[in-house]
């Protein structure tokens, strides 16, 4: 690239892809999760296990924190004295990789095994990962999972191994992994659209968690498509991208992004649970 080119387009390069800079994004995959509709049933988590070849690690390893649940349901009790803690009164937050626009996990990998795709996804390249786990340390959401063992050796004894999804790999030990917004389904949808010579429509791509949720709490789509359901949701909640502090006209709107103030630019919006009184 020439100096002239660099100087002319400096402001656009400096803002980079996220600030509306020079990258031409085809899609910008985004999610919206309605915490009021979430019942904490864990169906999304189970679907994720099935879709992405995640190993069930067993009770001992789970308790030690070595589980592989890319999508996890977090339970919080904000009024433990009121309800019959812990059997009821929990609020649920489905937490998975937020596909941050300014992902803190990306610059710290020594071998560049994680990068940002033109789709707006944070991609993990299993083949390149040498397992230094710096990305896991630097993720504020702690949604990165490490293959601490060769789970494939005993997680799927015959005939369970026949239900593995052939659309993606089974990872060996020593490699970092995380939610990919079911990138394998995104690729299939894009390929089919290309074959039919059309654009990807809203509803073509359905990640496993979205597909399974019984209350339709999760909405997924392309933020660059103004007609998509998820775009309309973000609009209605007045949650804007490319900012770390939302300024809303209506203070009663429930939409927010987690750890937004850290300026990581998450792609997932949560809508707060409606409660009887103020928290």
């Amino acid at each position, binding site marked *: 690239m020439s100096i002239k080119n660099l100087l002319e387009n400096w402001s656009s390069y400096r803002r980079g892809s996220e600030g509306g800079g020079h990258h031409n994004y085809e899609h910008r995959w985004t999610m919206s999760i309605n915490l009021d509709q979430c019942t904490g049933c864990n169906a999304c988590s189970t679907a994720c296990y099935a879709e992405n070849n995640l190993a069930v690690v067993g009770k001992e390893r789970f308790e030690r924190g070595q589980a592989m649940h890319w999508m996890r349901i977090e339970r919080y009790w904000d009024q433990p004295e009121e309800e019959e803690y812990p059997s009821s009164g929990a609020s649920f937050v489905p937490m998975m990789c937020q596909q941050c626009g300014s992902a803190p996990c990306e610059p710290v*990998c020594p071998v560049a095994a994680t990068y940002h795709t033109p789709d707006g996804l944070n991609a993990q390249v299993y083949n390149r990962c040498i397992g230094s786990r710096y990305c896991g340390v630097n993720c504020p959401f702690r949604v990165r999972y490490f293959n601490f063992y060769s789970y494939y050796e005993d997680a799927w004894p015959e005939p369970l191994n026949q239900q593995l999804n052939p659309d993606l790999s089974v990872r060996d030990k020593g490699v970092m992994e995380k939610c990919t917004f079911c990138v394998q389904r995104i690729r299939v949808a894009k390929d089919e659209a290309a074959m039919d010579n059309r654009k990807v429509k809203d509803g073509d791509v359905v990640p496993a968690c979205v597909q399974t949720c019984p209350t339709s709490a999760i909405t997924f789509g392309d933020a660059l498509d103004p007609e998509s359901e998820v775009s309309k949701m973000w609009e209605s909640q007045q949650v804007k991208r490319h900012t770390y502090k939302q300024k809303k006209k209506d203070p009663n709107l429930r939409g927010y992004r987690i750890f937004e103030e850290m300026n990581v630019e998450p792609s997932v919006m949560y809508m707060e649970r409606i409660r009887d009184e103020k928290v």
Partner: protein
Amino acid sequence: MAIKETIDESIKWAEINADVLRSLETPRKAYWVTLAICVIMLFCGIAAETYQYNVGMGTAHLSNPHYWDMYLSSFVFWIGMSHSGTLLSAILLITQSNWRKPIYRFAEAMTTFSLLTAAIFPLVHLGRVWNVYWALPYVSDRGLWPSFTSALLWDTFAIITYLCASVLFLFVGMIPDMAICRDSATGWRKKLYRILSAGWTGTDKQWRNFRQAYLLMACFLIPLAVSVHSIVSTDFAASLNPGMHITSFPPYFVAGALFSGCAGIMTLFIMLRYLLNFEQYMTLEIFEKVCKLTFVIAMVWSYLNLIEFASVWYGHDLPNKEVLIFKATGPYSPIFWTMIFCGSVLPFTLAFKKLRRNLKLMMAVSLLINLGMFAERWMIIAPSLSLAFEPHQWAVLWPSIVQWGIVFGSFGWFGFLILIFVKIVPSVSMYEVKELVYHHRRELFHWDDKFILGIHSIDLQHKKLVRLVNELHFAVSYKRGRELLEKTLHDLSSYIDLHLDYEEKLLIDSGYPDFDKHKKGHDLFREKISSFVDRHNIGDETVQHELLEFLKGWLTHHIQGEDAHYVAHIDESEHKDEN
């Protein structure tokens, strides 16, 4: 053998050679026991790593959120230990501190071997060790380069550079000693030393080149050492975790490194002195200086700790505050308080002369200090990861026996390398000890702390007087020719006049009551000196030695006697002026 104060001035060069070369021969029983222990520890480490390599990192009880634990903290600990050699070899070379001369060889070896031990940990802590070379910037067929935004990669470059520079520094410093070994060795050892001594014959030109090269490398190594540990600290400072994302980490880590390096020198000093019978050379005077240095650095480290705590305490950053409280009161608190005790309280034993001279106590103190520093590195990682931003992932997890085993094994590896080294390379630098003795011998008048009065200008002048007396002694005793003698005598007498006039003016200005008596003493001195000079000018050869003896005696008594009397008065008058 009784504990020696200073190296015997009358020692012969051949004796130094013989003593040090003897350390390379068959060792005493204690050496074999220590070596056996180190090898056993090393095997524990190898066994643990083999198990972890085959089964997976999960055996170390790492988890989400504890992605890093003792492997990284041991890595930082050993890099820190490597600053010992740089401090003693390079920094003290630049400050011309001669007491480093008998001991810098093993300190420099410590640097190299600490780095080699630290190099184990990036291998051990990687999930896919067999691909570690991807972190090196080589031209791959896929056009892939490592990510230059990552602090772990900066580590790679920094440590490789530091290792190469340290090995070179160690090797070059050894060359004259390797020549001595070559000349007295036989068989395969002779071949080895011939290679290592690189054709050294001790000519003037070689010595000049050697001195230049060594000094240049020392100047290069000092900023390198500071930068290496600063870069290692950015592993943590560049992450976003509360308790790790702290601006003062680079100087804090460098101070901690110098601290643990000094404590390491103390430990090895006592060990090698015993194992290799070096009581003659590794004297108590030198050990005391090392202890004092350790104490000063302990205070620097404690101060940096304090400002880190203070800035967290009065800052508005809630996660950081929570992590600090968690460190002090949570499940990690015994380790945290061990760190505080061993790092800030225990070093006060180094401030007392009586305790410093108790070598058994000092061995324990130095080991405990390093225990504290290890705890410090661990407490930077584990509590921060336990209590990071995401509340669902707050968890405390202790390392498994596999992790302990590998860390344990690293100490064995380090000990093993050092013990093998001291049998191949003389761990006391023979040529430097000879230099030290030679310079000491040259001095008629040894400047001591007891001559310091506390008035800066007077002390400087007294120091210069002593130096001029020593120069005259050198010119006389070593028969350096008439010209030098005349010049030195002239310098000395004119400086004496300058000093006496200055002192008298100072006393008049401050209104010293006993001024007349003091001036009488000065006048007598002036008379004596001029009579000596007159006798010299008419060709009296015997006057030189008389003059030197007279000067030595007079200065000693006058400084500690009459000059000491006016110190209190000058201090008072200065305070009156201020008010």
